């Protein structure tokens, strides 16, 4: 099936957003493991910054997800 240009533009935008989410997620996974390691080593002071940064990364992912939902809705409406 032929894809018209606006639809493929939407797909490109979604792919870009997905790539960004994957990067944020990798940072978040690393952050969780590093915070856990330092917590288990008895350094409890890393827990608060770890949680704050993880929360910010999650909000970034959520914003990108909402962006994807919007693009999806717009592209498939017409």
């Amino acid at each position, binding site marked *: 099936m032929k894809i018209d240009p606006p639809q493929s533009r939407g797909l490109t935008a979604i792919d870009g957003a997905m790539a960004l989410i994957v990067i944020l997620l990798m940072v978040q996974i690393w952050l969780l493991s590093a915070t856990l390691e330092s917590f288990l080593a008895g350094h409890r002071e890393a827990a608060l910054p770890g949680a704050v940064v*993880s929360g910010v990364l999650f909000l970034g992912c959520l914003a990108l997800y909402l962006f994807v939902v919007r693009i999806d809705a717009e592209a498939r409406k017409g």
Partner: protein
Amino acid sequence: MKLFRRPSSAPLWQDEFSVFTAGERYVNRRQFTKFLTLTSLAMFVGNLWILARSWFYRAPAYPRRVVARADELAVGGTRIFDYPAAGMSCILVRTATDSWVAYSQKCTHLSCAVYYAKEQDRLECPCHQGFFSIADGAVLQGPPRRPLPRVRLERLGGELIAVRMEGEGA
């Protein structure tokens, strides 16, 4: 719920299982993005859990316990003892005439028991070749990322007394 709203007013099954190839590409990507976002939420919850554990952490009251007589071990000799509770193995090493150190015997990688390698003067874990410094329990090589928890010792007369653990996680 608005966050997870369907992209169109079509019935749900049409929305989630598009019969058009172009539509299907969008559906797949949206669903995969949702999965990634939920994974991100799970990571965040994990960090919140660590935060809660560290906020509500109460340092345990460590008992004082005689672990050995000072002259009991020759230099390079070792002794296994339980501290702070039964079943929590620790290793005591006499490193010099007037120096003794003790560490938890549980490797910080996957909990195998470490032993003292006299020739190399270090603690070694036989499971994945994790080596720890005898001086401070720091990781010298291998997969462990945390030093061994140390048992703080006091010498009282001719006896060595364990007073607390250091570097132990909650």
